[in-house]
């Protein structure tokens, strides 16, 4: 595959920057980065036509590690930043990267509204069920009993947040799950997501080896989903109801709602024309 890409243009490594990741050795985010660069090569996009936008967190560091345009914004606001960029610059391919804390805790409202608004961009959430960057607190996807954080020494005691169920309920039109244990597969999902017109959500199981060392076992637990996607929300909802969170590698739901594009005249008028409304 890489060979073919090289013939067409840029190879995955051309989408990597020279900046050395701050990540812990073994962190799942390395594979996600690899999958993103692979996907970009596969999509044969010119570097300058791609932007990767993020908030704050270990996972949100990705933009600086790619060689495309990047935006490392503030915590929780990656989706609105990317929304603004895409709406103002529809010619750009926009990826959004981040973590479960950035996306589902502080950024939860934008997640809801991005699913609903359906702007054409691809959201890759590295879910490690923890706030890695701030040294290990419970995130919305953390199990109720996890007692590894000094901030919630008896566990968060709240049921974890089901991101894909919420995405579906909020109207997302492309919902998939990947795993950092299979970057090739993830690259394929990302390619699919980018090609999908509208908002695509890809939840990626990406272990935090430092604060959730038990997640190293995930690679044994995950399994490739056996059925392919449905375009029926009811069926997708049923599947998600019985899902244990470890099926990956397939798109779960794809809808056909058109992407949101703001009203805008093709033949712009001159400002004085508007001003005539004020003249008496």
């Amino acid at each position, binding site marked *: 595959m890489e060979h073919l890409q090289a013939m067409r243009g840029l190879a995955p490594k051309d989408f990597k920057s020279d900046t050395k990741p701050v990540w812990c050795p073994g962190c799942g985010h390395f594979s996600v980065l690899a999958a993103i660069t692979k996907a970009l090569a596969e999509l044969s996009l010119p570097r300058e036509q791609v932007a990767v936008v993020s908030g704050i967190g270990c996972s949100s560091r990705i933009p600086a590690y790619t060689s495309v345009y*990047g935006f490392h*914004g503030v915590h929780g606001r990656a989706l609105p930043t990317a929304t603004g960029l895409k*709406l103002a610059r529809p010619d750009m391919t926009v990826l959004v990267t981040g973590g479960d804390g950035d996306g589902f805790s502080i950024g939860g409202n934008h997640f809801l509204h991005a699913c609903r608004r359906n702007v054409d961009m691809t959201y890759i959430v590295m879910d490690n069920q923890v706030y890695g960057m701030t040294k290990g607190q419970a995130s919305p996807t953390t199990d109720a009993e996890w007692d590894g954080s000094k901030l919630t020494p008896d566990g968060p005691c709240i049921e974890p947040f089901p991101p894909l169920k919420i995405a579906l309920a909020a109207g997302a039109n492309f919902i998939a799950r990947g795993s950092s244990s299979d970057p090739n597969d993830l690259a394929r999902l990302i390619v699919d997501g980018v090609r999908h017109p509208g908002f695509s959500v890809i939840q990626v199981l990406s272990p935090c080896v430092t604060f959730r060392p038990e997640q190293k076992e995930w690679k044994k637990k995950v399994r490739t989903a056996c059925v392919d996607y449905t375009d029926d929300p009811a069926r997708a909802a049923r599947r998600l109801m019985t899902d244990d969170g470890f099926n990956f590698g397939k798109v779960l739901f794809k809808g056909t709602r058109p992407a949101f594009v703001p009203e805008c005249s093709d033949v712009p008028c001159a400002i004085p024309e508007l001003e005539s409304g004020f003249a008496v």
Partner: protein
Amino acid sequence: MLERFVSLAVAGSGGAGVVTTGNLLLDAAARVGWYAYMTRSAGPQIRGGEAAAMIRLGSAPADAHDDHYDLLVAADWESAGRFAAELPLGATSIVLGDPRAGERPPFLVDAPARMLDLPMTALADEIPGGRANMVALGAIAELIGLPDEPLLAAIRHAIGAKGEAAVEASVASLRAGRSAVPDIPDFPRLEPRPAAPGMRWNISGNEATGLGALRGGVRFVAAYPITPATEVLEWMAHGLPRVGGALVQAEDELASINQIVGASYGGVPSLTATSGPGLALMTESLGLAVAAEVPVVVVNVMRGGPSTGIPTKSEQADLNIACYGLHGDAPHLVLAPHSVADCLMTTQWAVHLAESLQTAAIVLTDQATGQARAVIERPAELAFIGQRVVPESVAGYERYALTVNGVSPMAIPGMAGGEYTADGLEHSPSGTPSSQAADHQAQLDKRLRKIAGYNYGEHWAEIDGDADPDVALLTWGSCTGPCREAMARLRAQGWRVRLVAPRLIAPALPGPMAEALAGAPRLLVVEQSHGAQFLRYLRAHYDLPGEVRSLHQPGPLPVRPGTIVARVTNWS
């Protein structure tokens, strides 16, 4: 002084058509070459409560109300009473009340004004389809010397679509009002002037703000509705798509500010408009715009604070948050228009500056100016169009290069070879995150340098009045109008007065300010805030000369020219 003004207020319950009366007066005034300034006030009810229109007409532009109203027309006493504090009357004021409305109410018992009857409802009842507010309009027109023709044109423009019968009923009501009003020889009258069509604009401050943004090059807006900023957005929602731009209603202010940061990063000049509570939610991301050097403009239409405060009324108390509300050392621009017309120029200039300096600009207007409607001179074209410095060549491109003037060329997505990551983390010139003291110092210096060292030219302030003054009035925003009027009155009394109203609040410009205030032995700082925020800001950043005194008064009542005159003449 050759210029003449007349001040009038109309008050009534929700259905009384108070605002229609005001709008027709403004339209007609424009048609006879007058200028006008109108503010509105409403009760707490969402709809259908009482309303008042406060109008000043004149042979010259006015950006403020007078100390009292020459005429108050009350459709009923209860509604008018609700605005008692907002409707000061003088000894020569006339109050026109409907005899059907009953007893003169308590707030008028001690008022010095002359009370006259105008049987608005009775006269309207006699005309098929007649309306009391049109009777009132006729009475007003008669008193102030407004001829029939422009009024008819205004009525035709407003309700012509409803058919000839409606127009005729209005005209008949008007005429009935004209005949019912007694002759009051000493009432201030204005002379119609020849006016070339199109040379007067009828525009609100919020509309002017929107137009200024468009003229400055703004083509993307994301916003969340909030009183009293919504009209800026409504006008832009109508205007933007027509000029090839777009407006998006966001889920909240956190989204709107970050959407415009994203859009502007994409190379499109972008803006949002909000009011105090919304601005508070935006400060984190305004800091991002400053640190990542992404131009954005935030228009903040101030209302009474703190917290939800008095959402429908005016105050100048968001100066602190605008100047100082970002965490860390985050130098940025704060601008303030000083009149309805100036909303256009200042917003346009703000876009120009934000784009040129790659930073965040906050434009502070207020409810009084934003929701005021004025008849003004048709504004001139201005050369301020947002312009970013882009890299001439991408060889060895560094996004945050340490340039002499502090402005680093900015690659726009789509530009091959310019790929970089914009970052709110401190960074080296290339944009790579850095926690080294030397990088931090260099970038802090650069971000300050570009703003502090820029040549802002003459536009930084309105400066007017005498060269060698007895007193200088230092003010900002919507207090400029009352100060200008106070200056005129003081000069008429023989005082030498200077007026200084900075349009650029931050950064401070010590050189130009020292020059502007030179020679003034006394300085009165005038503002509409409880905490004297402007005075404190000035003390922090300028060495103020002479004896400094402060006239600070919270909203919602406007600072009146007479109050300023009194403070100057009773100096202590």
